[in-house]
């Protein structure tokens, strides 16, 4: 009892201190804060509009097939932990959304860093497979001491992802092969390769599931199937932000993406920027694979790869809605995580196939591709 009261007081104190410091910060840097907010207003509105458009199209599709769009969207909100009918917020459900958001964040980073360097890197899907297989191998088949094992799994998975990302990067640099073609072909090659590895080299005690991760290799579980990897993912997002905006190689990378001619004229090596963006992307996607392969209930992945699939492609939408910004990706990934989590509620409550969510994501991506969508509408209205 006393502990509870104590913790509540501590919480209130923390909120108070945080609020006070925020207030002081805003007061002292009023001009900067206002101009920053003005700067992010347009991208925010555009992303929100794209999401709105996606939901409208989703509602239209539901109408065409005689479902109630209202019921569908009420159960979609359950994916975010919001139960409108019961008037409650269920943190337990929100945790599942966060569990989806963890790999999305990382695969979105893969795409976003590529976009910042002017590349359309859609190879995250294959790199997730490879990273997942590497993680499952180290976690399930190699015995290591307790402290080191988790780190070894993480590092090896990231390196494996980066290694797979190196192939399209080198093909792009040496032969000028467009990364869309090479990445997609490598995704499919990775798909069959990892399936082979899962069946012939990584079997566990359960049929069709790779060997369980040894207890020393498991990430600490927070709740549900959310593991502590989410903190690593957030850290990676922040590190990539620091790299892109506060370090010289990151600046070069962005310059190559914004204006390759100016970059070449300034003596910046374009191939190095391409290589760097692919490697960072591969590291992030490999970590996403590890987070998917080593999570509760199975602690491995199914040998049809259903546990690893689609995360790479959803990452494209996450990155676009997050405006290819490592920090913007975080809320965007949580939104997409909730969307993905809502699929099973829609299936259970209303009988809508959860694949509708993928369709909505597609529409959101299409809407994000139109740069002046809002400007266009405004001009029409005038």
């Amino acid at each position, binding site marked *: 009892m006393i502990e509870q009261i104590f913790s509540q007081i501590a919480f209130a104190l923390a909120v108070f201190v945080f609020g006070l410091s925020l207030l002081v910060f805003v007061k002292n840097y009023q001009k900067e804060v206002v101009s920053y907010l003005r700067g992010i207003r347009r991208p925010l509105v555009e992303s929100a509009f794209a999401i709105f458009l996606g939901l409208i199209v989703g509602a239209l599709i539901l109408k065409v097939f005689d479902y109630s769009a209202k019921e569908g969207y009420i159960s979609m909100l359950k994916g975010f932990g919001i139960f409108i009918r019961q008037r409650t917020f269920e943190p337990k459900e929100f945790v599942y959304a966060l569990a989806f958001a963890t790999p999305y964040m990382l695969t979105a980073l893969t795409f976003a860093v590529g976009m910042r360097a002017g590349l*359309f890197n859609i190879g995250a899907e294959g790199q997730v497979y490879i990273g997942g297989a590497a993680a499952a191998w180290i976690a399930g088949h190699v015995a290591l001491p307790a402290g080191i094992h988790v780190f070894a799994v993480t590092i090896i998975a990231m390196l494996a992802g980066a290694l797979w990302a190196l192939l399209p990067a080198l093909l792009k640099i040496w032969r000028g092969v467009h990364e869309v073609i*090479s990445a997609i*072909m490598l*995704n499919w*090659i990775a798909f069959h390769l990892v399936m082979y590895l899962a069946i012939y080299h990584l079997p566990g005690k359960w049929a069709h599931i790779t060997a369980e991760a040894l207890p020393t290799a498991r990430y600490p579980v927070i709740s549900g199937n959310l593991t502590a990897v989410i903190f690593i993912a957030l850290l990676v997002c922040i590190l990539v932000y620091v790299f892109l905006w506060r370090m010289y190689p990151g600046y070069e990378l962005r310059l190559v993406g914004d204006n390759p001619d100016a970059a070449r004229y300034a003596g910046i090596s374009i191939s190095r920027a391409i290589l760097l963006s692919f490697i960072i992307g591969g590291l992030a996607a490999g970590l996403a694979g590890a987070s998917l392969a080593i999570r509760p209930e199975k602690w491995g992945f199914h040998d049809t790869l259903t546990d690893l699939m689609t995360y790479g492609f959803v990452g494209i939408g996450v990155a676009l809605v997050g405006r290819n910004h490592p920090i913007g990706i975080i809320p965007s990934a949580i939104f997409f995580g909730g969307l993905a989590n809502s699929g099973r509620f829609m299936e259970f409550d209303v009988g809508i196939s959860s694949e509708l969510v*993928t*369709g909505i994501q*597609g529409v959101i991506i299409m809407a994000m*591709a139109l740069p*002046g969508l809002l400007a266009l509408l405004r001009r029409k209205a005038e």
Partner: protein
Amino acid sequence: MPKARIYLQRRVLVFTVCLVAIVVFLYLLGWVGIKAKDVLRSSLFVMTPLALAAVGECINEKAGVVNIGLEGIFCLSCVIGVYGGVHLGSGVAGLLVGSLMGASIGFIFGIASVYGRANQVVFGMGINIFGDGMLLFLLITIWHATSYNIRPEFMIPYTSTPLGLLSPIIFVTIAIAILLHVILHRTFLGIKIKAAGEKPEAVDVAGQSVGRIRMLTCTLGGALTGLGGAFFSLGWLGTVVKEIAGGRGYIALACVVFAGLEPLLALAGAFIFGFAESLAFTVMSMPAAHTYPFFEYFLKMVPYIIPLVVVVIFIGRRPFPKASGKPYIRE
């Protein structure tokens, strides 16, 4: 001689060598116990959707629009085409419905990229993801199952040829490729299309609408891809499943690069990829393959490795139009 001409000649030479090599290879296959006729027949089937999509995309890219949403159009037109075919009671109607579906997506893509000045690669990827999701959504919503087998009476009937039973759509595809080649290189419309990709300002100055030309090619490319998508189910496999396209939309893109935007070369490229794929599947079904079951997974990679290797080797100097992938903005 202009450089583009030399590259084209070199490309034609490469394709001829490839095709001759395939013929020799087919002759040698007889010794291993594979019937050359069967491989050739199935590679023609694999070729058809690839070629339809690739030929349409060639025209598209000639006009300066890059649509990477071929995979999504395949998925959507496949399921819609089958739905239309089953409801209207004939396979041909299904093919038309499928190509109509493809044309409408191409039209939307055209509007977005020409008038909305969209990022074409991102928009195309959006189409792919939308198609991927909607294929399974429609399957489950319409037929309440993750796969649907078409009754034989709704399939496009095969015609018998010296090679065995072939779908008439195969010949339609070859005719379309030849027709588009003629249109592109022998008519005024072809000149307009090429100019819209190479120098849109010139088209504008000449009093022609760049937007209208690009809309036309987008819709045409979409319609051809949609026809290919409907062919998967109605003319070839007789079923709709989630993995029906299996990345073939992207292989068609590789085919376009391989062919350097020439419709006839795209047809040949699609045949070469089709041959590689059907050969891999023939080997997979051989009795000897069952002694090494793990080998199956490596054979399944072949359809993806071959396009990759081919693109790496033959990409050459890019023969792509200068305004490719950029929206035209009048100054």
